[in-house]
């Protein structure tokens, strides 16, 4: 059954991703992005990383999407939808396909360990422990990054305020 769900989620992820890059209406692109990200959450569940799946829903589904949708609505992009794609489209397709080909080639050429269908489940508590013992420094740096993002965004926004 795991396999079936893997294919369902994988299809969601890829279809959503294709929607993002191919659809001509930018709001629909955002919607398919949500679908794709939720599919990734499903993949995490299959990988037994429940916490990460929920984080994916919480951060991507909740917070990142709200930013993207707000940005779409603030830029009034619906009226400008006809120039969403650049002239470099065919070139980009070639580049992406070449990249994909090389990936596939690399994956098929690699010799994988024998027990490739053995996964190790990840308990929630262990993530917490690891995060606060081993990864304490990156953790604090993350807060710094977030602070910088916050301050930067506020500066940008306050500039906006000053203009009006």
């Amino acid at each position, binding site marked *: 059954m795991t396999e079936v769900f893997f294919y369902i989620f994988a299809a969601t992820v890829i279809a959503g991703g294709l929607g993002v890059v191919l659809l001509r209406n930018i709001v629909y692109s955002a919607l398919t992005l949500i679908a794709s990200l939720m599919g990734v959450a499903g993949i995490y569940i299959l990988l037994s990383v429940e916490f990460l799946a929920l984080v994916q829903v919480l951060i991507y589904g*909740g917070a990142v999407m709200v*930013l993207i949708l707000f940005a779409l*609505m603030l830029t009034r992009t619906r009226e400008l939808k006809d120039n969403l794609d650049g002239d470099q489209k065919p070139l980009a397709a070639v580049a992406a396909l070449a990249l994909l080909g090389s990936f596939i080639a690399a994956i098929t050429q690699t010799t994988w360990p024998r027990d490739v269908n053995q996964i190790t489940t990840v308990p929630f*508590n262990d993530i917490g422990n690891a995060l*606060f013992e081993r990864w304490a420094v990156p*953790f604090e740096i*993350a807060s710094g990054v*977030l602070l910088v993002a*916050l301050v930067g965004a506020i500066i940008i926004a306050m500039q906006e305020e000053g203009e009006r």
Partner: protein
Amino acid sequence: MPFDALLENYLAVFLATIVGAGLIATALIAARLLAPFSNQGNKRTSYECGMMPIGQTRTQFSFRYYIFAILFLIFDVEAVFLFPWAANLVNAGHAAFWEMVLFIGILAAGLAYAWKKGVLQWNK
């Protein structure tokens, strides 16, 4: 088998989306069958207090909302770190506690900065 139990549990979540979508779809189809549906021109204008719509409809809204969205994003990420910490604090000990105090402190400083800059206050 916990892993199977986990998948089983989330199966219900997956099903919930389907059942929910099914319920709505049933209701919409039932309404489509039962309710009158009109294509008459005036009925299909959007509501503008009885007048014809004026000006653009999909236009900007307050930029303020975007700032709140960014604030939300930051604090949501903070919550991600808070949950494993909170559930595990009893075992984690002093160091983890003070680490998190520092973490929250830095973000609270961001909030204080926003406050001081007047982002949280909509002035007239």
